[in-house]
């Protein structure tokens, strides 16, 4: 699967948070298996969508991929470099190539910093320009690129609206000329009217700067517009990956089917005819994930085998991977 066109390659990535007790001598009493062995790759210029319910580990996966949380196991190769195992200067070098945009436009900007400081921070860290003045100039350019007036450079985040803030966040992500950006639910906190603007901006930037995105979202509707391929996560593992159209037209995993059934269809007739699969029960605790197929307690079509045997991760048709016993 790996070739020169592959920008990001994730192999068996795991992120377990320990649950500890005790004060000075801490004992580990359990782990939260937030991400429990996921593998995928992203091609240059491609947008991979990653969807799943809240708490399925998709945000953790995105953050662990960039080394924001120390990974428990696995590797992430970005543009040929292993981001998780690099240290010091090497790590800094890779960090330049990979950036992240966050969900909450209010929490993701330091309230004590001006826009200028925020946007030029990556340039300072990576020593991209010789002087502060040059960095400011570049920051102005970036603001222009994301559709903000350059003279807002010395303002503070609290003077902006949510959408404007998200644009600042995007400008910051672009500041280090990255190849790859993790978009961590960048639009879910925004008004619907703004959402489209931001998505359009992201698409425009992708074209201009030939960026590669991992687009994390909790529902499938918005992802459809921007993604080339989509991965579906459930309880720390990926259950299905396919090209966008393939996934939407031919979802194989019962969980994907359930998610898709929740997406409203613009055509009223089709919408009325839409068969909705309602999932019953809560998402199980990631401290104690179910045995076998993790989806089996909530799966409407589960069979006996699903309880005990972990389904194989298979490519059922070209570029369409799925983990389910019922899929042939």
């Amino acid at each position, binding site marked *: 699967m790996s070739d020169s066109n592959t920008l990001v390659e994730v192999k068996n990535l795991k992120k377990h948070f320990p649950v500890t007790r005790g004060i000075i001598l801490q004992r580990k009493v359990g782990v939260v298996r937030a991400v429990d062995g996921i593998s995928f790759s992203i091609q240059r210029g491609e947008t991979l969508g990653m969807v799943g319910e809240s708490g399925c580990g998709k945000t953790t996966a995105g953050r662990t991929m960039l080394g924001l949380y120390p990974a428990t196991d696995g590797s992430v190769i970005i543009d040929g470099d292993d981001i998780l195992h690099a240290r010091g200067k090497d790590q800094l070098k890779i*960090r330049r190539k990979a950036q992240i945009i966050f969900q*909450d436009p209010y929490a993701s900007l330091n309230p004590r910093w*001006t826009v200028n400081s925020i946007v030029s*921070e990556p340039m300072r860290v990576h020593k991209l320009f010789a002087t502060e003045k040059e960095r400011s100039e570049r920051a102005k350019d970036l603001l222009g690129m994301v559709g903000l007036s350059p003279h807002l450079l010395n303002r503070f985040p609290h003077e902006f609206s949510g959408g404007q803030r998200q644009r600042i966040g995007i400008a910051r992500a672009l500041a280090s000329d990255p190849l790859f950006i993790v978009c961590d639910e960048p639009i879910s906190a925004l008004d619907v009217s703004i959402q489209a603007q931001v998505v359009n901006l992201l698409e425009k930037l992708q074209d201009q700067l030939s960026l590669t995105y991992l687009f994390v979202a909790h529902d499938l509707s918005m992802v459809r517009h921007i993604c080339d391929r989509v991965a579906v996560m459930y309880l720390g593992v990926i259950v299905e990956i396919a090209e966008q159209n393939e996934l939407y037209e031919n979802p194989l995993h019962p969980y994907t089917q359930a998610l898709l059934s929740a997406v409203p269809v613009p055509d009223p007739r089709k919408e009325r005819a839409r068969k909705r699969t309602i999932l019953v029960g809560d998402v199980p605790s990631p401290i104690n994930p179910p045995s076998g197929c993790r989806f089996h307690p909530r799966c409407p079509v589960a069979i006996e085998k699903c309880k005990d045997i972990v389904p194989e991760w298979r490519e059922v048709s070209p570029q369409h991977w799925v983990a389910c016993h019922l899929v042939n």
Partner: protein
Amino acid sequence: MNNQTPTLSELADDLITPPLTLWQLGWLRFRRHKMALFGGVILILLFIFAFGGAFLYTEKYANFNDTSQRLLAPSAEHPFGTDSIGRDILARTIYGGQISLFIGLVSVIIETILGIIIGALAGYYGGVIDAILMRITEAMLNIPTIFLLIVMAKFFGGNVPEIEIAGRVFSGSVIVIIVIIGATSWMYLARIVRAEFLSLKENEFILAARATGTSNSQIIFYHILPNTVAPIIVSSTLSVANAILAEAYISFLGLGVMPPTATWGNMLESSAKYLDSAPWLWFFPGMLILLTVLSINFIGDGMRDALDPRSRTI
């Protein structure tokens, strides 16, 4: 106070220049706090008194004694009177004020540095570091401060040589007092800072900085610390008042700054036996302590309101 409602031209300016930094906002709110403003003026006057007074009298004069001139009531020659060995009380309150304010400020700097470092390390790194540092903090908090002060004052007592700072020679006991007040008062601040760090470090802007590759020390000092500045400033301001009072307490217990170096605290202490016979002995240092502590408390109160991040009004 008229500038609460911006004029039209100001509104126009607003469109071009950035309106208000958080500091300006704080200052605007602080200015509305009359008590705080009053406290600020008093404190500035006290500083002018203690440090400007040095141009009026030399330190040698403050220590100049003449036992035949003892316990003189205030007069033209000695505006505040003289003490039990005939030293001029005005000159001693000036030089004593320098020491008292110096003790207040420097011990709080020590307290703040300790509190920030310990709170920041515990809050940012968490885990074992947090556990160890917080156990130490709790251990210190479990013992009444005055007990700690006494034990530490005796522990360090007399072991520190005198040092010279900015032309003044400070007796070792000044350094001791500063260190022990600083070392016994950082715990609350450390807890405040830790709590702030714990909540702030989960913020996405910290993750963004880490994604960029910003180092831990830069994240601590440039990203998180500026956001904890408000509670730190409020807490430290109030600590200055507490430090000046603490100095007076240890002086009363005979463990404070040793004479002939004057402080308001030890001047007040030695005046206790002249409550009725020579009231000027306690009136002036007592008044100065009162004014200092009072004004600092007012300022701290005003700052608390002004820097409250929840408050969005001007």
